[in-house]
């Protein structure tokens, strides 16, 4: 029996060429976990056979920074560990970026989608990473997607996901929303995703 040597681990997950790992940052109660679940439901509709969505495993408090994760792949996903080196970061609440290093682990050349009124080039990391921006809060208010008077951004921002992830279509995102909700609620959320899709600005 022979000995062998491992190359240094370079922080990149290489198990599947097609695997995309996504980290969503939000605040407790903003629906980051729901967004991750809808995202992978859409990805499955689009023919990606392996999908996973999970919360950061810990106690959740309303308003505190929270994370959720999604994986999308052509084949079955055997990974059960946390996402440490995402390909895509999605920020539901821009103010999180003052307290959480949302870029931590983001792969070189990775993409970050931010709910903000700013433009991609307004962020100093826009030279290093591919940045997409959308005013999901404004879109939620415009369509009256409110809970207790507060705008709900997790569904609108999903409309921007096809702009940073070509494995998922807007049609499937809207389909996943229509599977989860019915009537007017589904209708306004679907309209919001279209608005988000159209108004997303990218620097790539």
């Amino acid at each position, binding site marked *: *029996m022979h000995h062998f040597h491992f190359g240094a681990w370079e922080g990149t997950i290489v198990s599947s060429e097609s695997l995309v790992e996504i980290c969503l940052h939000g605040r407790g109660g903003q629906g980051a976990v729901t967004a991750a679940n809808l995202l992978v439901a859409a990805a499955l509709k689009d023919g990606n056979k392996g*999908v996973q969505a999970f919360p950061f495993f810990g106690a959740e408090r309303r308003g505190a920074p929270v994370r959720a994760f999604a994986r999308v792949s052509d084949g079955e996903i055997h990974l059960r560990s946390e996402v440490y080196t995402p390909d895509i970061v999605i920020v539901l609440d821009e103010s999180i970026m003052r307290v959480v290093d949302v870029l931590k682990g983001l792969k070189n050349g990775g993409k970050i989608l931010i709910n903000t009124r700013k433009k991609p080039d307004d962020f100093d990391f826009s030279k290093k990473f591919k940045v997409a921006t959308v005013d999901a809060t404004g879109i939620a208010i415009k369509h009256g997607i409110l809970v207790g008077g507060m705008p709900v951004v997790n569904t609108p921002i999903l409309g921007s996901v096809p702009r940073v992830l070509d494995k998922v279509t807007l049609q499937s995102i809207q389909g996943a929303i229509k599977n989860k909700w019915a009537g007017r609620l589904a209708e306004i959320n679907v309209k919001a995703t279209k608005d988000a899709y159209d108004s997303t600005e990218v620097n790539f």
Partner: protein
Amino acid sequence: MTIMIDTGNYIAAKAAVMAKPDVVAAYPITPQTTLVEGIANYVGTGEFKGEYICVESEHSAMSACIGASAAGSRTFTGTSSHGLLLMHEMLHWAALARLPVVMCNINRVIGPGWNIWTDENDSISQRDTGWIQFYCSSNQEIFDTIIQAFRLAEHKNVSLPVMVSYNAFILSHTSMPVEIPKQQVIDDFLGKYEPLWKLDVDNPITFGNIIGPAGYYKVRRAMQDAQENAEKLIPQIAKEWKQKSGYYHGDLLELYKCDDAEYILLAMGAIGAESKVAIDEMQKKGVKIGLARVRTFRPFPKEEIVKLSRQADLIVIDRNISVGSEGALFSEVKAALYDKSDAKVYGFIAGLGGKDVPYYDVEIICKKAIDGKTKGYEWYGLEEA
């Protein structure tokens, strides 16, 4: 057939309800809570037509299941960690009474220190209760194993309770796609539960009465025989389910890329899935290594492991510790090999307290073993905790 994307707990609730138990009795505990909520929701939608008994503790949950099962009902429950420990007395009771209760256990750490994450000490410490123990590694496997568990538990040559364990959060709260077969497929596969005996007011019998030493001795031997029967039935049931549903997760072991392997890694639960990525990576580097994921801890796959040891040295990862000894799987593997094989066995403890075990840690563990840099067993990753 439909595809459902949901968390391990909601998938387990779906499987439990589709098995059509007559009685579910359960008490909520993190991280099992959404499993019982899921079943409660099926009561609301009318999809669960059995009796759902809300009890005041896990000891009562298992007691209610014992009573229901003894009355001839198909019976299901779920728990986790301290809930499982509170059931301990009644776990022995259910097994000695030979009642085919099926239970999910969501593997969670035992406190103190208070911790809701995963390791497997809760169910491993119930090893000697007589329950059959499965460990799952995906949501599809949770669904399929629950269905298979009813079939196995209720088989007249087994008639023992079955525990279906899966890791807290890593499986219980992670959404994955699962193929759900048609109800008819499950109805045909399980049939109606025909108890060998039951408590029946029209045909009174007594059970659990005083029994002398010689008789009790036979009771214990009969349980052992039933576990050995289960060892033979588990592969048959798994293969029959594969024919009906298309899904197969292995027999007592799931072998992954073991052909020509000079080293075989043994692991249970979610680490057993993550390890497949490690095996792929190591094989790309030319390492002749495969994986045997241990699905059943009881009955223990002794013969299969001896067979593997004729081909390869074994590396064992335990997400549990028998304090004062070593990892339970490591002990069992070595005991199985005694006098039958001179393969080397390397033991590692990893992931206690829910510490994440990514595939590259599994690679490092295997490298340590293969490079001969470990003696006895080792605690992996302790220094970074």
